């Protein structure tokens, strides 16, 4: 019987939520790595019991954990992530040059074809890859050494490579998004990169249409249409129909177009989800109402989804890696909040219910659909 496994990273540990295909009754496992910041956990698409997890703390630094049994047991694997070659500088918040320095792994993206290959997006922004199931890591330095990198600046959360999208139809293509540099694309497996930010407009930088400097919060694609990308930017929801060559705004009738996550329905490539947040200085939902907004038209026209979500006195945020979809029919949609709730919908967003209410602040949510 089919089922789902929801991998939840929080500020104080990881939790694994499992259910059968009905997605009504849930088992909660955890905390795993209690007390540690778990920025991201993700499973391999080709070997679902192979999980990778980013574990870190201010005291003890960065660890990478791997499970080969779906999260029942874990093994600490390699955590030596060192920049390759000349370090170089980027700009600090005050505009002065600052050498690249490793802070943490924000995102782990397993290969679509090889369970032993996994990519890591780190802060300060760079892309690493392991081809031995996490035991050793090498930087793919072409991103960090892009000619524009010396003028990249951190966003409020740090200068992080937070989104890595792989493309089934173009195996050598990788999309990466960096706060606050923008989106970059590689067509040679991560060796070389170019910015793809044409059409973005950010009033917070001196040249609002600059080639780099945009605070992109999250990208999403449907695997069947990898040339169509959706973006939640610092402000603005955007889409591209040409693999990032150009972007247009699709914020439409959203109550606010600031936010962090964005995701695509598993079976309807034009159905997308965002969680509008009041503003960049008020990181909570507007009007005290937790609303997911769904567009069935690939943007521009949005409807609020509220059934089962708190509609008063709610002031949580939903972070960039904290929304995910399963591939059951109907499609399940899941997100976690900074208040520690994980909500799920088993019908594409029409009705929601909390799976668990009182976890530590949620950093990431990934879903695996199990056969």
């Amino acid at each position: 019987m089919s089922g789902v496994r929801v991998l939840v990273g929080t500020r104080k540990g990881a939790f694994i939520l499992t259910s059968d295909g009905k997605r009504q009754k849930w088992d909660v496992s955890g905390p795993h790595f209690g007390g540690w910041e778990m920025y991201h956990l993700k499973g391999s698409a080709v070997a679902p019991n192979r999980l990778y997890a980013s574990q870190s703390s201010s005291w003890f630094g960065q660890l990478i954990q791997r499970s080969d049994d779906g999260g029942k047991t874990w093994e600490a694997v390699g955590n030596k992530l060192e920049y390759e070659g000349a370090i170089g500088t980027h700009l600090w918040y005050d505009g002065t040059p600052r050498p690249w320095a490793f802070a943490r792994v924000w995102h782990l993206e397993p290969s679509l074809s090889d369970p032993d290959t996994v990519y890591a997006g780190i802060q300060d922004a760079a892309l690493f890859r392991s081809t031995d199931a996490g035991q050793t890591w090498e930087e793919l330095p072409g991103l960090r050494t892009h000619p524009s990198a010396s003028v990249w600046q951190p966003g409020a959360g740090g200068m992080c490579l937070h989104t890595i999208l792989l493309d089934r139809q173009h195996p050598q293509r990788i999309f990466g998004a960096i706060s606050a540099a923008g989106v970059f694309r590689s067509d040679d497996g991560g060796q070389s990169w170019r910015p793809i930010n044409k059409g973005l407009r950010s009033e917070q930088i001196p040249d609002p249409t600059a080639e780099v400097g945009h605070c992109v919060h999250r990208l999403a694609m449907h695997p069947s249409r990898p040339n169509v990308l959706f973006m939640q930017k610092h402000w603005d929801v955007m889409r591209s129909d040409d693999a990032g060559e150009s972007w247009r705004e699709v914020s439409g009738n959203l109550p606010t177009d600031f936010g962090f996550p964005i995701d695509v329905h598993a079976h309807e490539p034009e159905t997308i989800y965002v969680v509008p947040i009041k503003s960049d200085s008020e990181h909570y939902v507007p009007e005290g109402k937790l609303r997911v907004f769904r567009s069935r038209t690939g943007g521009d026209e949005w409807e609020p989804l509220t059934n089962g979500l708190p509609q008063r006195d709610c002031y949580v945020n939903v972070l960039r890696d904290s929304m995910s979809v399963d591939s059951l029919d109907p499609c399940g949609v899941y997100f976690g909040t900074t208040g520690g709730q994980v909500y799920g919908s088993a019908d594409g967003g029409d009705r929601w219910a909390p799976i668990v209410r009182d976890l530590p602040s949620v950093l990431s949510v990934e879903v695996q659909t199990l056969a």
Partner: protein
Amino acid sequence: MIRVVLPAHLRTLARVDGEVTLAVAGPVTQRSVLDALETRYPMLRGTIRDQATQQRRAFLRFFACEQDLSNEPPDAPLPERVVTGAEPYLVVGAMAGG
């Protein structure tokens, strides 16, 4: 044998209970003790000292015999009572909330 006391999170990571005891060849210094610790428990690499610079992580302190050795040279001899095993070498998480 050198006795080492680790903070709780590192004991969990290393899958040990209580103190760790290590045989250290040659001069007993902070560097040689931590090298021996990381050799025996490779999962601790990078959690006490930065892997590239070997610098102590900012939120950790090293104590022994009621002395703060955190900023002592890594190759300085440890106190005799640590060398003989009468006193442990302590890796301590700094007091910091969060």
